[in-house]
């Protein structure tokens, strides 16, 4: 077995064990962090591997979230079919957004994706009779179950999050080592050169963005299902910035960077808010220091200095 796969399996096993070791408060946090990490892993595929700096991934997160929550709430679907709706909705939204936004690059791409996400946010507000806008709506506990497992229970929620996280990690781990993934990295490194080797760069960027948006959408769907709430605030700008922060902190273009970044950011805010009301100031200073001294993120720096095989 290769080392990256072994490392991924160890991380998954450690997360499974953590549920039984950690106090309830922290395992509850970890369930949320794993879902956010999946979101960031989707983002990382576009930004970290393909070099597409999107500022609009909240659109895909929300497409998955609303795909699931609206179809459960208004069409009375059960969890599995609703997850399928979420999958299709986020893939479709990412496909259309990608086809248009990928006509631009660099700063223009950032702005276009940001605008698309804002349009998505305003759409959620516009259809307030279905979405309840910013206030959002709650998914009743009775419907939040798969095959009799109660996803609102601490254990059901934790292991559902872990399964989603593990599947995503293993898929991405395999993808970035496969020829397709290597090509995405090549596009990030030097788009003109990749084109002049005969790669259809435009098509591959689109495929990467669709995969990225779909993974992010599944995170959004899981968030609604596991925590029982869907609201337009998840479609707003901060939710486009969070995955970027997680990925930058953890290490762009590393498979485990999104998890590390999400854990770090979550506990940075959690711990500093216990000390002072000005916790955002503390978080801000730490982020500035990290970007100054570890510009490649925690795992990116680790890989560069000590562990070159880190996936």
């Amino acid at each position, binding site marked *: 077995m290769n080392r990256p796969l072994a490392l991924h399996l160890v991380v998954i096993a450690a997360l499974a064990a953590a549920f039984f070791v950690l106090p309830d408060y922290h395992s509850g946090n970890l369930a949320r962090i794993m879902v956010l990490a999946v979101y960031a892993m989707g983002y990382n595929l576009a930004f970290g591997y393909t070099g597409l700096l999107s500022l609009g991934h909240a659109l895909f997160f929300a497409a998955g979230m609303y795909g699931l929550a609206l179809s459960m709430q208004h069409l009375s679907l059960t969890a599995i079919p609703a997850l399928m709706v979420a999958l299709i909705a986020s893939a479709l939204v990412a496909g259309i957004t990608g086809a248009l936004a990928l006509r631009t690059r660099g700063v223009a791409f950032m702005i276009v994706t940001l605008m698309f996400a804002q349009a998505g946010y305003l759409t959620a507000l516009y259809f307030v009779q279905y979405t309840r806008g910013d206030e959002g709506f709650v998914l009743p506990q009775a419907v939040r179950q798969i095959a009799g497992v109660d996803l609102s229970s601490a254990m059901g929620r934790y292991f559902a999050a872990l399964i989603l996280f593990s599947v995503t990690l293993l898929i991405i781990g395999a993808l970035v080592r496969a020829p397709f993934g290597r090509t995405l990295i*090549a596009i990030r490194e030097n788009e003109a050169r990749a084109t002049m080797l005969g790669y*259809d760069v435009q098509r591959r960027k689109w495929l990467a963005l669709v995969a990225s948006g779909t993974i992010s959408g599944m995170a959004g769907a899981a968030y609604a299902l596991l925590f029982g709430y869907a609201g337009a605030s998840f479609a707003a700008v901060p939710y486009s910035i969070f995955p970027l922060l997680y990925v930058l902190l953890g290490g762009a273009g590393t498979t485990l960077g999104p998890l590390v970044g999400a854990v770090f950011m979550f506990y940075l805010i959690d711990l500093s808010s216990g000390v002072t009301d000005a916790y955002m100031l503390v978080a801000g200073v730490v982020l500035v220091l990290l970007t100054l001294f570890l510009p490649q993120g925690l795992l990116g720096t680790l890989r560069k200095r000590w562990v070159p095989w880190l996936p």
Partner: protein
Amino acid sequence: MATVILETRGLTKTYAGVQANTDIDFDLPEGQIRALIGPNGAGKTTFVGMLCGRIPVTRGKVIFDGRDISGLPAHKRITLGIAYTFQITSVFAGLSVHENIALAARRAGGNAARVTETLERVGLADRADQTAGDLSYGHQRILEIGMGLAQSPRLFILDEPTQGLAESEVAAFKTLITGLKNTTILLIEHNMSVVMETADYITVLDQGMTLAEGTPDAIRANRAVRAAYLGTADA
């Protein structure tokens, strides 16, 4: 005469009213090593840019292997069997030397054996695990040539490949180029020793137009060429 693998008819490029290339008719027989020379600003890079699709044509046609490829995007032209090396070194700086060659070989249907073979052929086998961006300038140029070779192209376009190379590396390059079988080569080059020793035939561009074409000896004797180019460059 051998089959013509590449031809252009009336190929023209205008940049905001400035004619970079004007009505170039060009025929390249299969298997030939053709040098494309001319003073700076003669339109050489523009010309090859239009051949491989990096630069959109203003008017005219590019025909590769009997097929009009004028409307094809660059990546599709490459998959037909054209390889291109950039004038300004362009490798995947953050990836290993091996990965650079593998990316080139894979798209062209090459396997691991071809990657190893190419690395040895260009003398980078012992640096295969180094990051391409950490290589010396000369080695990066050689890596880029290796990426072209790994594609096993039918037509290999090289834009000033020996620029900045050491003497010994230039000599190795000449051997490499003349030893290629089944590959037609179009070489933009300023180094006259490379041109005279490797090229079967030479095309001279001046001010965006074909000034002269002929064997190295004929070009050396051509007075118009000497006036436009060699006279000043060799002085």
